[in-house]
């Protein structure tokens, strides 16, 4: 199931990691972008639905730029978008963002601390920037 999707929208797809805080950070960063920071031109979809092969979800990743956010090195979001024939314009690893927050205690897979929300915000800023760049490139190409 995808949120309402328009032509030119960028899809932000986090992994659905449920065991570690990294999965929650990726998920919350996605909502920051799609609900608040760039709600007019980004959307998300259910990764499980894409993996299941739902035709609507597969079409969506094939016809829109995708930014994936993964909580661990297994990169389920990135790999599954690629397997479905999608265009991964940017693959983000949550662990990379931790480098700028040494010693941070981000919380758990259930709830983020203040540190966790700061890391989430940093990732959301990066996604918003990347989405704007992708849209600008697309406009310039027309």
């Amino acid at each position, binding site marked *: *199931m*995808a*949120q309402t999707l328009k032509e030119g929208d960028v899809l932000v*797809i*986090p*992994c*659905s*990691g*449920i*065991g*570690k805080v990294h*999965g*929650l950070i990726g*998920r*919350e960063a*996605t*909502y*920051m972008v799609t*609900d608040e920071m760039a709600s007019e031109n980004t959307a*998300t*979809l*259910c*990764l*499980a*639905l894409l*993996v*299941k092969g*739902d035709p609507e979800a597969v079409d969506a990743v094939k016809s829109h730029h995708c930014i994936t956010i993964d909580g661990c090195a*297994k990169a*389920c*979001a990135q*790999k*599954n978008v690629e397997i479905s024939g999608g265009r991964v314009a940017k693959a983000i690893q949550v662990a990379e963002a931790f480098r700028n927050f040494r010693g941070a205690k981000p919380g758990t*897979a*259930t*709830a*983020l601390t203040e540190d966790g*929300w700061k890391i989430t915000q940093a990732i959301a800023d990066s996604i918003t920037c990347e989405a704007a760049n992708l849209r600008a490139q697309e406009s310039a190409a027309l």
Partner: protein
Amino acid sequence: MSTNTAKVGIISCSGEALPEGTISRLAARRVLELLRPDRTVTLCLPLFLAGNEGERNFARTHPTITIDGCGKQCAKWGTEKHSGPVSVSLVVPEILKSTNGGCHCSTRALSEDDTEAVWAVAERIAAEVDSVLASTAPAVAENAGSDTGPGHCACSSPLPGGKLTIGSKTVEIPGLPLIFAQFAEKATITNSDQGAALLDLVKIYHPIPAKEQEAYKDALLAEYQKFVGMQAAK
């Protein structure tokens, strides 16, 4: 399926595009951390679907409960395709029997509706865990507390518990601070009734022998007052 059924695998769809996906995720976490921490593990659905043999092997050899946020039932579909029939499949809207009008995708904006929905779904999952384990009781008794072999998912550890002194012994109650937090959120009870209400709440998660209930009540009330004091100091 082998007889090693000490733990039940909880697989939530965690669907990102709808509030019910978040409810499924949070309810699964609550069961893992608080309601049945010693009896459940979780499996990452996309990793499972992407072909991780450890996760698939766990689901082949243990009972599984899937929780889906919508009728497409991706969690159930994936589990059955890759590992075999699930023991129980739950669908969030069917449990809640209502629309998700007041619910949210982000945990940053959780409302009272979200909180109630998560509790309702979590309690239903916990009841199904009990039911599944009861149907495989002998194997559970043999394997209780043991690690679960190669398919064991180590990423979901139970929450640290709270300790109570009951007579001459110390008991640990998983997730006691979370139980206190839940109690504090709903507390409209007068001081004289707090001990009994706390006891009722803790009994949902922790077996308390009838003859020890008075001692538990006093110990819980004392610990709760410490908890409230610490929260106020923060």
